[in-house]
């Protein structure tokens, strides 16, 4: 079970990556308009 000492921080590191991605998205105004893109995707070529 000692391998957990290595695995747990690695798991946390991965999720930290997701956190960074989320913060990046928030900073780039990805959450500002949640309605329009769902329509736009249907008509963009």
């Amino acid at each position, binding site marked *: *079970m*000692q391998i*957990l*000492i290595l695995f*747990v*921080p690695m*798991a*946390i590191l991965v*999720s*930290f990556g*997701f*956190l960074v991605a*989320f*913060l990046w998205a*928030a*900073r780039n*105004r990805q*959450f*500002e*308009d*949640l*309605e*329009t893109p*769902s*329509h*736009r995707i*249907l*008509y963009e070529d």
Partner: protein
Amino acid sequence: MPSQPCEKTEEPPPALLLQRQCLHCQQPVPENDSSDFCCNGCQTVYGLLQSCGLSDYYRIRADLGTQRPARPVSWLQHKNSFAFLDDPEQVTPRLDADGQRSLSFYLEGVHCAACIWLVEQLPTFLPDVASARLNLASSEAEISLKASGRFETVADLLLRWGYRPHLVQENSDRNKHARRDQILMLSRIGVAAFAAGNLMILAVALYAGVDGPLAHYFEWLSLLLALPALTFSAWPFYQQAWGQLRHSRQVSIDVPIALSLVLGSLGGTYELFWGTRQIYFDSLATLVFLLLLSRYTLLRTQQQVLRSSQLLSFYTAESVTRQSADGSWQAVPVTQIQSGDTIQVAESQRFPVDGVVRQGESLVDETVLTGEPFPKRVGPGDNVYCGTRNQRECLEISVTATADDTRLGQILLQAQHNLGKKTHLMRLVDRLARYFMVGVLGLSALLFIGLGLLLQHPQEALVRILALAIIACPCALALATPLTVQIALKRALSKGFFVRNPDALERLPNLKTLVFDKTGTLTLGRFEILQAEGFNAPDVQAAVLALESHSRHPVARTLVQAVLKQQPQPIQKVQDFSVIPSGGIAGQLASGHWQIVPDPDFESGSPLQSAGTALLRLKILHNDHLRASLTLGDPLRPEAPEVLRQLRAAGYQIYLLSGDQPAACSYLAQQVGIAPACTLSQQSPEAKEQFLQSHPDAVMIGDGLNDLLAMSKARVSISVQGSAEENLQHGDIYLAEQGLSHLPNLLWHARTLRRLLKVALGFSLTYNMLGISAAVLGFVSPLVAAIVMPFSALSVFGLALIGGHILCKS
């Protein structure tokens, strides 16, 4: 919108099914009209789109089923100069790295996915446009231009498509600030979610019985992970609690929340170092995450409601012709206008400010402020108000008030102020939270004195106090009401009820008396031909068109439009046009001598074949022979009889209050089934006010500011209008959808909300009672309390969401 779960599926009223729809705006084309359009504006836009190869717009729209109906394009004749958009002194666009300039516009009239498609086609149509992005929720388009492009061309094209553009002053501090706050809030939520998720994995391992060095390792890791959630993410709670404790006695629910968080983290840290090593960090982080999430949804809904009510921005974003010091006229943005300036307002433009007429005479449509369908005549010295429309001649006015100081601005400020207010129930919850906290502190003190000092169990007392503090965190209470109310408001918005004052939704279920205004509420508030005899003959129509285009009376306008809609045709020449002193007009055409005169024997309010209030009958004479007669008046809303029948069936007492003549009122009341005893005619605004004072539990349903006095006295006021953006409404609740058909729905919505609130409050109170008793008696350890706590918050969350779905299904 297909993706929206709240899409309405009601059938249109049968009366509408029989009518043909305008090809552009899908509003019913008036009967006995052979064209496919409801007005010339719509026809123009239709032709424009076809000629640009953009006819896909209609195909796309047909696939969707629109959320809001488009409005007829009636503003095309507006002359508006957008030249100031390209003047660097007046407008500063954002500059991109590659030399592109961008501006944001609010677009009046965007309503569905097809509009997104159309607006975002701009680059294929104008090569100078680099990109165009439309945000449907806020109706704001961001348009980027290449270095060579001009915003004026873009704005002109948008206007011709039927979307009136208004410049959005992007770089205002408030906007920037709000945006930064929102990003910060999202970041806090993200960090809390990250911490809570990882902590939960570690906590499961610890609860499952990991021991030895691995357990130590996990515990320290937990502390490390919890730190950002308990400091950075939970910061707003500490900040607000501290602020409230220092500056006021007004303690809101933030104080007990902060207290729980601080005690929980201190307790956890203590346990980690010296105690039984039961740590609660996972529960605390989850709690922070849930609380932040609920506040964020709340904030977003509120912003959405506020944004839709920020109607004044419409009028502050147009260009105005101002007289400069040397006497020349210049187009400037409204923001530069100050009191004392002299400006020109052209025909069919809205007044952007309050002012006094200096020169010119005209008719002003004050429907926005007064609800009065007939335009008012103004001349030098008369007041004109922001938001009303100049219908005839160009006026020169001197400015007396701008922006928020205008009459309209004041009304809007008041409306927004009301919106921010906490509802009665939310205040009640805040007060409950205060007693709650005092109670918990008192219980803790009692526990400490009783158990710790008198019974000599200080260790046990501390453990119980900790359990109490954690389990009694009023998060269930703090989440339940605002969340339920906000979800209800959001649902209301998506259904077309625009709730200005959330209190009204809470009060509505108690009230069983409905008071209707007549003109504009039960009727359409428009002048229309209600009944016609002999009007279809081509020579009669040609004569009416020719004669009435010489007159500037509102009746003339109705007649000209009616003829043009039925049969577009050139206007014939009139000789010897004259106005008859006793009323009416006359003139000589190629086909003979024609007269249009009012029928003196006609009584206003006489019974008709079609429903409505008849106001006037005109006789059309050809060489002194009666050829046709027209009855004009205000037609009844087609859905009104059915809606009132439903309301009566549901047990509501219905009154009709009108300023109109008794004959007209009783005839209309009979048509919609209101008892004669409940029909009050010839009521002055003050009399209406008195009536509502003597009926304190009444809901007033009116059509705007002319019923303002009465509406301000009513427990709840609901305003009704045809189109949201053309008219500013002042009631607690505004029915943004056309007409009255959603009124029963709204009443149902309010009743459901009340039931949901009761359930949510009952749940959180029961939970707290049970939890506190258990903690005081020592049945729950702090650890169990910490596990239960987020579950209670989660279940409240779930309750509110399920409630929202129920509200949706109506």
